[in-house]
């Protein structure tokens, strides 16, 4: 369970680092966000939702069944788009309106 940050997409805003509840993300010498402690990630996805450029990806550790797929988000004013992308680039898309409750 952890996250990976794409340095090409990272815009060095530091927002992921600011919200991480475990103080696990730091900015490196080039100003890019890096996951410093991958094995300490809780998997809350606060950093995914905070990132304005979609640079943060979240994957399951192999020890709990991860096979290389990742989760990423596009967080807008009124909804969150969640994408589950598999290694062969198959994408599932789930949109959640912020104005609607869960049904369960």
């Amino acid at each position, binding site marked *: 369970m952890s996250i990976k940050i794409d340095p090409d997409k990272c815009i060095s805003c530091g927002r992921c680092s600011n919200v991480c509840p475990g103080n696990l993300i730091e900015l490196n010498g080039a100003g890019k966000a890096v996951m410093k402690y991958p094995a300490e990630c809780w998997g809350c*996805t606060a950093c995914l939702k905070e990132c304005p450029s979609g640079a943060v990806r979240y994957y399951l550790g192999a020890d709990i069944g991860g096979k290389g797929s990742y989760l990423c988000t596009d967080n807008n004013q009124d909804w969150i788009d969640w994408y589950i992308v598999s290694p062969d680039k198959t994408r599932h898309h789930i949109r959640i309106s912020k104005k609607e409750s869960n049904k369960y």
Partner: protein
Amino acid sequence: MKAEIRTVETDTLIIGGGTAGCFCALTIAENSNLQVVIAEKANIKRSGCLAAGVNALNAYIGKGESPESFVEYVKRDSEGIIREDLVYSIAKHLNSVIKRLEDLGLVILKDEKGEYVQRGKRSIKINGENIKPILAGAISVQENIRVLNNVNIVDYLVKDGCVAGAVGFSVRDNVVYVIYARKTVCATGGAAGLYKPNNPGFSRHKMWYSPFNTGAGYAMGIRAGAEMTSFEMRFVALRCKDTIAPTGTIAQGIEAVQVNVRGEEYVERYGSPSTHIRLYATVMENLNGNGPCFLKTKGISDERQGELFKAYLNMAPSQILKWLERNTGPAHENVEIEGTEPYIVGGHSASGYWVDRDRKTTLGNLYAIGDVAGGCPKKYVTGCLAEGRIAAESILNSAEDTQTTKPDKKEISEKVKYITRFFDNNMSLYSMEEVEQAMQKVMDEYAGGISSAYVYNQTKLETADKRIKEILAIAENLRANNFRELLTIFEIIDRLYVCKVLIRHLRARQETRWRCYQENADYPERDDENWMRYVNSVFSDGDVKIIFRELVGRDTIYEHKN
């Protein structure tokens, strides 16, 4: 490592900006001109156990229920040992704090008449993905609240039995903070990471409770001599295998039953299906060769599955990745479940500070609210809000009349030295990770972890006690090279203090009252004749002293006397 020392003075210091702390701060700020400082080890926008969100509010007085029936339910589910007075006081606030959250922007599911749709007798459905950003947003417009993000509090400043603030450090700025306050509120949450977790390898932090809640509030209270209660009532969650995602979303949401590998519904074989019996039944089925166990979901409609996906994304997104990575979901296969490692958490069980009706602790001018406060199981998110309000009301009535005596310069410099001395330690033979693993292994093997099906006995506990003492001595010699490493060291030390007290509580209750939570093989039966009472403790002169206290009834107005 050179540290700057910064002094802050305020009327109220709130340690921990989770749900309880934020709501307490907000209530004080909205009703007075008192200055409030929130010291938060991460950032209040996403800190605490609701970082990912929450998809239901499970403490609510639903239709046909009352505060009185809520107390009866909690008492029944907790085998009779609760502080009825505390549970009753939160029950009376639950629905109004929910209304307040809704006014702040929380989306709650309503029917065509505009009434909340219930998920159960005491539960409502929400979109709580953004519950922390909502609270943080409300705080940001209050001029009299100052938020110190990334500041980890280590210890209280205590003078003549009264708390006069706290000391801590910034994880980012190489600053040691000395914060003086007339009133201090501990709202740090409970303790995870005491025991070897479900996924001890790379995914070690894929756990039920926030792995960043490491019992700091308990530990600072223990070290300062505050009375603690019911640590022996541990909490063990029943969760989805591997992802440790919630089961209530399915069990309550679509009323899925628990079945074993043979497809049999097994829970009622083990007693009336209370929270711990549903877990105990699952543990026993596995031990008896009938595992794995599942929530029976196969065959639900694709539409219901789609709604379940959304509910999980709002609270535990890993479960969605787990399903969709395999092109499956609850409509196609049952959901495997397992018990977690034990936690100490006052929002679910009764472990925490011994408090009076106002949530005052036994130390002067110190309150405890939320998961760190004891006696009040099943308070959950909304009960934490209620406790935030109850403490705030007491502070509003008394803060201006409170005069505190500051500790003298020598005492302050000793406190600062306690923090910074880890920079001066020689390189330790053992790494922080080794020390953490040593603690978790001892607790797992000798204090009733997953590997022993949560069962322990007196001899094992004595071994655990000795080993934790040894490990604490090693931890005191760890070396920090920067403030981030200092945080890790205190997260280990704080948990070791919690373990120390927990072991003594487990030894003290010589019966078995809560299966899995507190199961002593030397005393395998519930014993109402001798044990309808609280096990409390105070740490003094380096040792944990056990105190037994009589049960407190619903209508008692409890005040600390001795």
